[in-house]
């Protein structure tokens, strides 16, 4: 038995021993569960995972991880999926596991790693990120929020937008201007600050799809410790570039079909709503044609993800391919929602009420919400700038990537 096979067997056994049967098949969003016993089971499962270091398994053990390799981490998620288990910690930590943590591991001081990483890896501390500003958009570097040195702290003033989960986070990683005389990208720093202080106020944003996790966040003499400056002063731009690479990386997957995997395929849904001709082909040949394109694109995308992973010899690198995959994932996710809507016909454009099934109403929200995929985390256009400049080596064009 190879090392990985041994690891798989041990993983399987540990999950069997530790995962509460009561939670089986339920998904991540159990935080708000009203059933007291389920709540207790959930909390105990989180604790066991945290102790095992499996909240962020690839992180070093000294910072709350399990020091696992990428293949081992993959085995952990595979084995969890097989038993209907799940790892709720990345979701509970907000931007902590996927973005803040990896960047702190790379740029943080030993003190910062000790201070912040365990809370993230255990799911006890939720993080948000204060990057975008109302007048900056894709042009992140033109940000206005200011931080002035004041004793051992920075005093922060300004406004952030699209801070996901700001209203429920304990900590925030914020990009701030620390030298207003320097050129755009040069006077920026990345600071970490607690959200629970007088100088911080958040306001949720209502989206076209309804309620959202996004907030406007206002800093009014908010404070960050100087020791919570990540990376060198005025060099926050390189920190955030790395952060955004981690974000792009986390967005390259075409959205999972969700839930338990037993959802009907899009072609099955289509046959249900649209019907088939005597040969079994979808009755609407125009739709059938576009559905075929979509399914081919979708398969091409997942084959590409696998290929690039294989080429990187098992290590998913934060690579140039991320931009291609992000745009491809975007097209597929948005295309799927549009197709689903069309397939459902007038049942697919309902807003609420008993006339519509939950699948129908969910898709409408997914469709609306999904319009953001090509906007956030580097818009579709910005990704194309990156591909054309960084991958293809075409000369700098007017729009910066």
């Amino acid at each position, binding site marked *: 038995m190879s090392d990985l096979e041994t690891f798989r067997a041990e993983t399987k056994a540990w999950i069997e021993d530790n995962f509460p049967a009561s939670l089986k098949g339920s998904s991540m969003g159990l935080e708000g569960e009203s059933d007291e016993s389920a709540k207790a089971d959930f909390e105990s499962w989180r604790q066991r995972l945290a102790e095992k270091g499996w909240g962020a398994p690839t992180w070093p053990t000294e910072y709350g991880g399990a020091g696992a390799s990428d293949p081992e981490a993959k085995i952990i998620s595979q084995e969890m999926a097989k038993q209907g288990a799940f790892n709720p910690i990345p979701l509970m930590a907000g931007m902590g596991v996927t973005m803040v943590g990896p960047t702190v591991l790379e740029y943080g001081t030993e003190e910062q790693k000790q201070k912040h990483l365990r809370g993230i890896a255990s799911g006890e501390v939720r993080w948000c990120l204060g990057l975008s500003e109302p007048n900056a958009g894709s042009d992140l570097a*033109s940000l206005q929020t200011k931080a002035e040195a004041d004793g051992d702290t920075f005093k922060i003033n300004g406004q952030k937008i699209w801070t996901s989960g700001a209203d429920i986070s304990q900590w925030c990683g914020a990009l701030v201007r620390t030298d207003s005389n320097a050129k755009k990208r040069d006077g920026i720093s990345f600071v970490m600050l607690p959200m629970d202080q007088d100088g911080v106020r958040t306001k949720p944003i209502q989206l076209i799809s309804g309620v959202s996790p996004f907030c406007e966040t206002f800093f009014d003499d908010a404070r960050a410790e100087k020791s919570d400056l990540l990376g060198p002063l005025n060099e926050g731009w390189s920190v955030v570039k790395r952060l955004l690479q981690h974000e792009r990386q986390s967005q390259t997957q075409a959205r999972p079909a969700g839930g338990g995997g037993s959802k009907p395929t899009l072609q099955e849904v289509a046959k249900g709503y649209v019907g088939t001709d005597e040969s079994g082909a979808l009755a*609407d040949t*125009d739709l059938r044609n576009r559905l075929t394109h979509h399914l081919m694109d979708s398969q091409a995308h997942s084959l590409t993800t696998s290929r690039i992973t294989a080429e990187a010899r098992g290590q998913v690198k934060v690579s140039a391919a991320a931009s291609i995959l992000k745009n491809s994932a975007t097209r597929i996710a948005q295309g799927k929602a549009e197709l689903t809507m069309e397939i459902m*016909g*007038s049942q697919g454009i309902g807003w609420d*009420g008993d006339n519509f099934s939950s699948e129908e109403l969910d898709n409408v929200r997914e469709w609306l919400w999904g319009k*953001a995929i090509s906007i956030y985390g580097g818009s579709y256009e910005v990704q194309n700038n990156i591909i054309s400049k960084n991958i293809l080596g075409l000369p700098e064009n007017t*729009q*910066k990537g």
Partner: protein
Amino acid sequence: MAALTEEQSMLRDQAKSWVTEQFPVQKFREMRDSGVVARFTPETWQGMIEMGWTGILVPEQYGGSGLGYLTFGVVLEEIGRQLTASPLFASAYVGATAVMLGGSDDQKQAILPKVVDGSVILTLAVDEGPRHDPAKIALKAESTGSGYQLSGNKTFVVEGMAATDFIVAASIDDDVKLLHVPASADGVSREAMSMVDSRGYANVHFDGVEVGAEAVMGDAAVLEQVLDCARAGIGAEMLGTASQAFDMTLDYLKTRVQFGQVIGSFQALGHRAAELFGQMELSRSCMEAALQGIDADADDVSELASLSKAKVGDFIHEMSNQLIQIHGGIGMTDEFDAGFYLKRARVLEAAYGNQAFHRDRYARLLGF
């Protein structure tokens, strides 16, 4: 609009200023947030009646002005621009068309003047499932000797809650007939459908509803003609909505600054705007040709109606997506109007057959 008569130009100007000043999209937002069941405000509707819009199609002998379909299109386009909600299209355009094409003299006399004065709100009830399919009518009308008894359901009926009278496509033996059914008739019930565009729709149930023999208002051929008129007309509203989305986007391209320049100076966005503009111009030609075809009683109205619905449909689909994409984050917020246009776009696309339906139909009409 192209080569309008002086009368049409005046009407357009009147409609543009009335809609923009009295019932801009902000009023639509207020209506939506108010949760009113009919999904339009009485003032809007009253204003339209007073301006004579309910009589644009109706011949003078029945109290209208008989100005025709292209003229009505001028108004619908302006309404589409500001998403002004009312039963104008359902009643004074589609409903009036059905009465004019399929009604007896008595029916015309009885109904049309009331359509014009607004005391009757008509709507056409055709579809029975999630997809537009007028060839398959399951709602049964059985002969009672003195008339018919209707049983079945209609879905996605436009202004179905506000309507005073339904024009119902019913299956009689192996034939299809249009029947005039007052909403107050015994056995008629309806429930509002809350759609993504916050406008008025209903599911309507007919449970042994009895009507007289004189309720018949045309056959399958009339239905198809009425539908073609509806398709051509809704194209005008759609183009108005999409044109407004284009204008909003163009305005944003000229004012929003990123990376030190207005974003419209980025060539990729400039070219995208150019492509959208081209599609808008091409769509406009199809839309106008379909309405002019009806006015001229042309023999290719069906082709033109399908052409228009498909081309304008493709344009509004792409344009509404680009409206959000180019506006970026702000376009995603409910506070901004872009979402209204996106949501309305998909409902308009689905009405009277989506693009796929009309491409297939166009190909069949052209013999392949």
